[in-house]
């Protein structure tokens, strides 16, 4: 059980740090939004791998609820980011 947690957890850490690097570097804004989403996914992986209790037992439901909330929050932030980006490229007609 521990080895599964370990592998997925470390994979999550790798994803998180790699995505953080892209998010911090000066790249196009949409790419940074992508990077932030991937970094979030990495973190969620760490959460869920810690909750994994082995093949037989049911996993710990609290991190699952947290990650679900995290996904919705990440979506809201991305939606706002994209709307801001679009406003930058094409100021709306009524200005």
């Amino acid at each position, binding site marked *: 059980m*521990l080895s*599964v947690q*370990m*592998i*997925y*957890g*470390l*994979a999550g*850490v*790798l*994803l998180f*740090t*790699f995505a*953080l*690097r892209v998010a911090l*570097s*000066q*790249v196009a804004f*949409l*790419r940074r*939004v*992508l990077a932030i*989403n*991937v970094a979030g*996914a990495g973190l969620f992986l*760490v959460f*869920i*791998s*810690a*909750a*994994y*209790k082995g*093949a037989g037992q*049911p*996993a*710990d*439901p*609290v991190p*699952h*609820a947290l*990650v*679900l*909330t995290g*996904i*919705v929050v*990440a*979506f*809201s*932030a*991305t*939606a706002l980011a*994209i*709307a801001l*980006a*679009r*406003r930058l490229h*094409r100021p*709306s*007609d*009524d200005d």
Partner: protein
Amino acid sequence: MEALIWTVFDFLLITAMLALGWSALSTHSLRRGIALFIAFGLLLSLVWVRLRAPDIALAEAAIGTGLTGALLLAALRDEESAAGAASTEKPKNTIADYLLIAATVILALILGWALIDALMNRQYSGLANEVFTQLDRSGVTNPVTAVLLNFRAYDTFLELAVLLVAVLGIRSLNVSRRPYLKAGLVLSGLTVWLVPVLIVISAYLLWVGAHAPGGAFQSGAVLAAAGVLLRLSGYHGAGLPARIVIRRALMIVGVLVFAIIGLGLMVLGRGFLEYPLAWSGSLILGIETAATLSIAVTLIMAFLAGETGRAGNQEDSSC
């Protein structure tokens, strides 16, 4: 033998995921990046299933990949039309980049070591057994829904507020978007069949959430998918009610019902969101239905980016 299969499967899954994640972020063309990101999301859902988190798999597929992907592609459509050629800038590696790489490698090592330390000598197991002992008093049998809508209902309450704020922010930016062309024969045929199926699935997901993976967020996302499909096939209003007031009411109904039930319980002398045992099942279902409606409407409006083309005066154009 079986363990060997699992380890090989795990190894394949993780390498595929990391490869997709890496390539999604480091390809030069943004369009390919987004496509790879969607693939990465779907693979991630598979990982969640492997780690026995079916609710998360559903949510990831519907919201994390489906709707986010749709949003990104819509944004790409505008950016490319605005910028002309597809943006394929070649990132040149300056010293800052190397510094950044070094910093993130160190961060990765620290985090890895911290995680190993956390997992190896942890004396306190998580809140799992507390949830399972209290599960029968929560009114639902699916532990994740129990946590989401009873034990940590306050978190979900704030989370719906986050979604609402995001859409209010998008609405205030007032970004007008060119509506899509009328759908061809195949797409309209597909829409005619698919939209009712999506609606039925979303209703099922809402109902099944009480005792199996599902619930408000997944069903809301599926309903929103129906709306997005309508929008893509040329139906301008994307299934949203035409009158502005109703649209606003639907946006806030999720948070409103949550607050009213919470306050109602306080009036009855109990704590905020402290469901009485007998009614907790039905209260949770009530909240979930309201949440599904407002999640679906808000997700669709996020996709429409607020304004739906040539609307009337300033007052109404906002949503």
